[in-house]
C-alpha cells in the first residue's frame, strides 16, 4: 500500500446492528489518543449521508434489517462497507439464533472483513486502510 492513497480524509459511519459493544468500544479506542486514527484523517461522523465508509458491527438482528438497508441506501456513492467482528461476518456464537437475519453480507454487500471477537484496534485501522485503497481504486475506475 502506498501513501498516495492517503490523499483525502476518509469519513466513517459506525452502524451497530445488534453488537455486544465489544467491537464498538474497540472502534472508539481507535479514535482516542493511544491509536489516534484521526491523524490519518479517519473520522467518525454522525450521519451516513456524510460517510465514505460504513463500519458495521453486530450480527444484524431482525429489528435492524430494514434500518441497515436504509442506512446503506442513505450513504452516498462511492461507498464501502466494512464488517467488523466475527458475529457480523458469520454469526459467531449467535449463529443459530432465531432472532438473527444476518450475517451482514446477506443484507448489504460487504467489501472489507475484519475478523476477531473483537478485532484489535490495529486490525480495525488496517481494515479502514484496506477500504481506503479499494475506494481510491474504484473511484479511479469510475465504478463504485
Amino acid at each position, binding site marked *: 500500500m502506498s501513501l498516495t492513497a492517503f490523499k483525502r480524509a476518509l469519513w466513517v459511519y459506525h*452502524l451497530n446492528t445488534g453488537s455486544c459493544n465489544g467491537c464498538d468500544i474497540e472502534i472508539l479506542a481507535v479514535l482516542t489518543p493511544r491509536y489516534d486514527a484521526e491523524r490519518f484523517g479517519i473520522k467518525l461522523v454522525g450521519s451516513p449521508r456524510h460517510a465514505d465508509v460504513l463500519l458495521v458491527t453486530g450480527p444484524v438482528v*431482525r429489528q435492524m434489517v430494514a434500518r441497515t438497508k436504509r442506512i446503506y441506501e442513505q450513504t452516498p456513492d462511492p461507498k464501502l462497507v466494512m464488517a467488523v467482528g466475527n458475529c457480523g461476518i458469520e454469526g459467531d*456464537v449467535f449463529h443459530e439464533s432465531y432472532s438473527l437475519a444476518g450475517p451482514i453480507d446477506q443484507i448489504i454487500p460487504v467489501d472489507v472483513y475484519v475478523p476477531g471477537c473483537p478485532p484489535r484496534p490495529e486490525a480495525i485501522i488496517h481494515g479502514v486502510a484496506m477500504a481506503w485503497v479499494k475506494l481510491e481504486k474504484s473511484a479511479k475506475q469510475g465504478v463504485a
Partner: protein
Amino acid sequence: MAVGETEKATFTIPVGPIHPALKEPIRLALTVDGEEIVDADVFVGQVHRGIEWLGMNRNNPIQSIYTAERICGICNICHPFSFVMAVEHATGITPPPRADYIRAITAEMERIHSHLLWAGVAAHEIGFDTIFHLAWRVREEIMDLIEYVTGNRVTKAMFQIGGVRRDITEEQFPRIRQSLDYYKSIFDQLKKVFLDDKTIRMRTKNVGILKREDALKLLTCGPSGRASGVPKDVRQDQPYAAYADLDVKAITPDILTGTVVGDVYDRIIVRLLEVKQSIEIIEQCMEKMPPGPLLAQPKIAVLLKTLTKAEGEGIGRAEAPRGEVVHYVRMEAGRETLATWKVRAPTYVNLMSVPTILKGMQIADVPITFASLDPCMSCTNRVVVTDRAVGRKSVMDYERLHQLSIEKTKELQL
C-alpha cells in the same frame, strides 16, 4: 378530526441510525412543554440476539460461558461470573479459593475500565471532548493490564465452571502493581478534573436528580442507586467469591461531600471513588491470595458429564460495574443444555428511573442525564419530541440533541 388528535394517536416512533459513541440502539420518547420535559418513555429490544434461547437449545453449560461473555462487551467478566456461580449453585461444585481471588481481581479490573470508559462518554455527552480523550487515554493502561493478565483486551475467557482457566502468578504482581500505582498517582488529578472543573460542575450539579425514595421505589441498583444514597452493593450485602474476606463497603457520595443530592455530579463521585476502591481490592487480593489449584474439576469431559447428570436450580449474583447482575439456571438430569436460563442485567432496572430523572429537565440535558445511569444499551440517537402546548411533533436526531448539549455548555461558560 383535528390534526392534533390523530397525530398523537397514530404516531410511529422512528428509530434512527446509531450514534458512533459505543451505544446500542435504544429510543426515548419525550413529551415536552417548550424546553421542559414533562414525560419520557423508553423503548428497548433492538439488540435482541436470543442468547438465553441458545443456552437452552444449542449450547452445553460450558459453551454457554462464552455466550454469556458476549451478552455485553463492556461487562464481559460479570456476566460469565454470575453465570458460573449460578451453575455452581445448581450443581454443588465449589471453586477452589485461589480461583475465587482470581475472579475478584479480574472483576475489579473490569470495573476500573468500565468506569473510566463511562467518564469519557459522559464528558463527550456534555460536549467536553478533551476530557473524553483524556479519560480514554488513561483507560488504555488498564486495558494493557487486562491484556497482560488475561491474554485479550475485551473478551477474556477467564471463567470455567468450578474455577478459572488462567492463573495470576507471583511473577505478574510487579506488573499489576505498576498499573495500580499509575492510577493512584493520577487519581488526585482525575478527581480535580472531574469534580472541580467549572464546566462539569455547571452541567452536572442538580441535573437529573433521583431522590432516595424514588431510587428505592424504582429499585435503582449499582452506582446510580448508591449515588442516591442507597448503600446497596452485592459485594457488601451478599459477598460472593473472595469478597467475604475483603473489606468492601458500598460507596455513597456523602463520603466525599457530606450530603447526598442524587444528581449526575453525585454519580460521578461514586464512580470515581469506586475506581479507587477497586484498586484497593486488587491490592488486598494480591496480598491474601492463597496457593492451590485453579479448577475443581480440571477434566472438561468429566465436568460435562457431571453437568449433564445434575438436577436443580441455581442463582448467581454479581456486582457489575452498572449494578447487580442476576443469572438464574435450572438443570435437568440427562439434558445437555440448560433447562432454563434467565439473565437480568442491571440496565433493565435502571432504565425504569429514566422517566423520573428526565422529568423537569431541559432537552439539552437529556444526553448527560441519560448517560449518567450508564445504560448498557444506550442510544438516544433519535428522540421524538412532542410539544404539549403547541401540539407540534418533531423528530430530533442524536446529532441535533448533542449539538444542543454543546450549546448549553458554551452558554454556561460565558
